[in-house]
């Protein structure tokens, strides 16, 4: 839920990165954290297991700049991708303003992508949201690996509504900011509609 604070002249929005386990959600946030000036972002909080798998969520506040005199602050969250953390994923979707689905382009992860996307739609519905009406971007990650499915094929399989599709290699930052920009733009456009 967007929160507009007139006293501090701030617009706060929540964006959630969703996708199957090990698809690169945390890597997206880590790159944004590394590539952003410290004054524009807060701490990157990772609630992770000892083996660095996301246990509950990662969180990072990011200030993008000013629109019409209001500072725009995006609260970026990831969900845990592993199937058995579904209860946590549901909680993190509460109050979401925009979603990025990070797909793993590797052939052997196709079933996991499909399952996770279905899970996203279902969990959004459980919170009273409809993916078709929510700001949404599909990121095709790990495009640098040898065993990837062609972009057209992945898009045909995973796209839902003509959403922006961004090719990415999050580990080196390719496509990470394009993805963020695409979803942030939709969130602010939604705000414009009122």
């Amino acid at each position, binding site marked *: *839920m*967007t*929160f*507009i*604070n*007139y*006293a*501090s002249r701030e617009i*706060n929005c*929540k964006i959630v990165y969703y996708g199957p386990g090990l698809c690169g959600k945390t890597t997206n946030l880590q790159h944004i954290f590394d590539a952003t000036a410290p004054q524009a972002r*807060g*701490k990157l*909080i990772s*609630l992770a297991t000892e083996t660095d798998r996301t246990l*509950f*969520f990662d*969180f990072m*506040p990011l200030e*993008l*700049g000013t*629109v*019409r005199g209001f500072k*725009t602050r995006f*609260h970026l969250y990831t969900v845990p991708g592993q199937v058995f953390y579904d*209860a*946590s994923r*549901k*909680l*993190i979707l*509460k*109050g*979401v*303003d*925009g979603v990025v689905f990070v797909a793993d382009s590797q052939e052997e992860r196709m079933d996991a992508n499909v399952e996770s996307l279905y899970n996203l739609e279902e969990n959004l519905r459980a919170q009273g*949201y*409809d993916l078709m*009406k*929510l*700001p949404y971007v599909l990121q095709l990650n790990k495009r640098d690996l040898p065993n990837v499915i062609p972009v057209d094929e992945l898009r045909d399989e995973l796209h839902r509504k003509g959403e922006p599709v961004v090719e990415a290699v999050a580990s080196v930052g390719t496509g990470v*900011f394009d993805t963020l*920009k695409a979803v*942030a*733009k939709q*969130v*602010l*456009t*939604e*705000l*414009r*509609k*009122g």
Partner: protein
Amino acid sequence: MPDTPLVLREARYHQVKAVLARLRLDSGARVVFLVDKDGQQIAVQGEVGNLDTTSLASLAAGNVAATSGMAELIGEKEFPTLSHEGERESIHISVIGRLLLVVVFDEKSSLGLVKLRSKQISRQLTTLFDEIVRDDCQDVDAAFAEITDEDIDSLFN
């Protein structure tokens, strides 16, 4: 479709801050926060210093969300309060509708006092937020309707 935005006007913000200031004084707390259940910090009052209030707000909301999930699993609606006591600093969280009242306190206060004072102002906060939600936002809609594509693009330049 995303939820309707929550709009907090300046006068309302100062009303909220005044309630938090009163609670802080009455409970002897170090810092008092008001956070919404999605993790957005609404207002803070007290000795913030180097405290990362944005992260604390997000983690408090995550904490409440997780314990509410546990409550449901054992047949409870939610746990209305949560307390974490440390060696020097402690945190008490009260769930008030869609709001979380987070109080950070040390040995100058006590959990009992913080619980009592938090409970005493919860009705006042509920009434205030009911009014905030009902506030007329037509002028806000008009202001944001003027955002252009160029405005949005400029954020990423």
